[in-house]
């Protein structure tokens, strides 16, 4: 049998034809399924158990109607990828961002305000507990405050305390003030042979929230009206001095050595579970880890984060909030279908289902009795109290936040080293943060957008 002869011209033609086919008809984005349903691509940050919980909501939505089909895609580094895809004009239809991403995406006009979406007004943030409302609200580039998405889940931070260790130290209950926390820390800390073997409270465990200490003493990171950094303000200085005193009290090296042995958060060696620290500032999701790894006898309580005695108010606890949001990028093909999905996710039943699976508090102002009774975190009331408190706070709502956070994370090291007073460290960081904020102001001015404090804002 004679073989097929491949000529050079034939090979070139085949290559060119293949390339042309690939460009014109190659793998592309499916916009409609064979059954006629509109396909929406939904990028979300969650994987594992949290991802499975959101996928279950997506599945339920897909089963609930026959017009729209949502495709869930777990996406690592979702903020960066969303930014690039939107900039490149190839965005998904729905994106699950972190709450602190909203200012950057909103100011850029990269996402669509709810009032521009058909029926989007029905997704008003007024339904949320006070701590979570701010996550989806932000001024557009013209300075008009609008809502930019929905809160899919949220959590507040509070103080977990190990009941057995408190009883052992003869402490009656959780500290209610910053001063009481210090006393409890001293009573709960054990030093043997110059080494710390157990501690009361370690400010950098787990080290995720370097920015939450200021409000305990009435400080704040910035003034959102004037865009002035307030890191060297009295409240912040007192707060970080409080942190420094505790970090250095038993020696910097022993503390560093002690901390270095802490296991990963998501493991049985978690410092709180292992009894190495008796108090930890965490969100409601820690109950998941406790349930998974702690023994039956592990007894814990949850209380709002203590505040300095001078500003303490049991009716309005101080505490930070975090949230995840779902937004609709600009220029999506079927905004109506997106709203349909968001509305489904925002039904109380689905929000609470997701919150339960994530071990978080409900972002809604009022959660159902069923939710509260089923919730595995026995300290849910404390988290809810923070969520409803007028003194709850979030990350500063500025697009410069990633940069400010980096500065504050890096600041914790010199603060805890204690080579210089916290005020000196804060003064330096304050200048750097102010430079970051001033750059944002200059950027707005360059683009002809309103600047904080009107035309006379910082140059």
């Amino acid at each position, binding site marked *: 049998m004679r073989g097929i002869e491949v000529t050079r011209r034939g090979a070139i033609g085949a290559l*060119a034809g293949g390339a042309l086919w690939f460009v014109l008809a190659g793998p592309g984005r499916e916009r409609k399924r064979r059954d006629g349903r509109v396909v929406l691509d939904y990028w979300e940050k969650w994987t594992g158990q949290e991802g499975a919980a959101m996928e279950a909501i997506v599945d339920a939505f897909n089963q609930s109607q026959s017009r729209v089909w949502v495709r869930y895609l777990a996406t690592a580094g979702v903020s960066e990828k969303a930014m690039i895809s939107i900039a490149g004009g190839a965005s998904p239809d729905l994106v699950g961002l972190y709450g602190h991403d909203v200012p*950057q995406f909103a100011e*850029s006009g990269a996402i669509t305000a709810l009032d521009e979406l058909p029926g989007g007004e029905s997704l008003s943030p007024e339904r949320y507990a006070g701590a979570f409302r701010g996550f989806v609200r932000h001024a557009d580039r013209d300075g008009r405050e609008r809502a930019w998405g929905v809160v899919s889940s949220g959590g507040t931070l509070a103080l977990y305390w190990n009941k057995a260790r408190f009883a052992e130290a003869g402490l009656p209950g959780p500290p209610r003030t910053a001063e009481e926390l210090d006393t409890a820390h001293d009573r709960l800390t054990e030093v043997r042979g110059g080494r710390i073997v157990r501690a009361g409270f370690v400010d950098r465990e787990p080290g995720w929230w370097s920015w939450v200490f200021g409000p305990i003493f009435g400080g704040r990171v910035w003034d959102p009206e004037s865009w002035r950094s307030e890191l060297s303000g009295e409240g912040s200085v007192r707060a970080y001095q409080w942190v420094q005193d505790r970090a250095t009290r038993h020696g910097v090296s022993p503390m560093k*050595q002690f*901390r*270095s042995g802490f296991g990963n958060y998501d493991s049985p060696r978690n410092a709180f579970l292992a009894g190495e620290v008796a108090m930890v500032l965490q969100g409601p999701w820690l109950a998941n880890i406790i349930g998974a790894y702690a023994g039956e006898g592990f007894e814990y309580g949850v209380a709002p984060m203590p505040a300095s005695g001078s500003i303490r108010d049991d009716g309005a606890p101080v505490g930070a909030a975090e949230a995840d949001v779902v937004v609709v990028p600009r220029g999506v093909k079927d905004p109506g279908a997106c709203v349909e999905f968001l509305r489904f996710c925002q039904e109380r039943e689905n929000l609470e289902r997701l919150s339960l699976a994530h071990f978080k508090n409900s972002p809604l102002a009022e959660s159902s009795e069923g939710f509260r009774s089923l919730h595995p975190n026995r300290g849910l009331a404390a988290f809810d109290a923070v969520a409803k408190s007028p003194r709850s706070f979030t990350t500063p709502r500025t697009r410069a936040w990633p940069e400010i956070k980096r500065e504050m994370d*890096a600041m914790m090291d010199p603060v805890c080293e204690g080579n210089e007073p916290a005020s000196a460290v804060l003064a330096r960081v304050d200048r750097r943060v102010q430079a970051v904020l001033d750059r944002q102001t200059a950027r707005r001015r360059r*683009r002809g957008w309103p600047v904080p404090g009107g035309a006379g804002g910082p140059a």
Partner: protein
Amino acid sequence: MTREGRENLAGWVWVSPWVIGFGVFMLLPMAMSLYYSFTEYPMLEGPVWVGAENYARMLGDGTFWKTLWNTAWYGAVVIPLATALSLVIAGMLTSKVRAGGLFQAAVFIPTLVPLVASAMIWMWLFNGRHGLVNRALGLVGVDGPVWLERAGWAACALVIIALWGVGQQVMIYCAALREVPESLYEAADLDGMGPVRRFVSVTLPMISPVILFNVITLTIGTLQVFALPLALFQNSKGGPGQVGYFYTMYMFDKAFADGEMGYASALAWVQLVLVLGLTWLMFKVSGRVVHTRG
């Protein structure tokens, strides 16, 4: 079309995937990044021309200098140490030893371990309380430091981890050492040279082009160090005193965390100029010491 013209055309068609790929995915982005480096470009909005402002900003940017310094010391320590260590290991591996293949594999395998996995392993090895390194030091009566919590020790840890991955250089040196003609060693023996003199006068000159190649690739690699310190100090952004916060990490943060693609592009161009400058300098200096066989 003439026969020559047809052949030229065919040649271009065959290389077109590479040429198009190079143009679209390398030259064009480079040209665009050069343009962006003169703009304020947050990616989600259009670029606005700012002239040389991004470059001027670097002069007063403490983090730029900090990360540049971190990268410089890291390179200055790792490049000579890695070169010396890989030469010594290669020398040992090319001498007649039993189970040489096993040792070669042991040296090379670390380069196959994903960087993040290797960072995780080292995090535990260097753990101040439970780490094997401190346990081993304890056996000889040394109270080990808290490696990853003190700036100086964290820097040492970074260097040690970098040296753990010299396998690739070792393999290249092994190949180069085997290429040195035996007759030269025989002549050296006849001249009465000892092992040190033989290494300095025969081996080093003969493998000097390979050393130059390895030093250049190491320089480029260390100037772009990224994944390992990122994974190692994931919770603290560069570790104690930000000693592990390197230039490329800062550039990445500027581009994708802060949305400052214009400034990040300027940082990238400065990095390119530094790499090119150092490479040029190495070629210049090496002209006098690198032996090229005629």
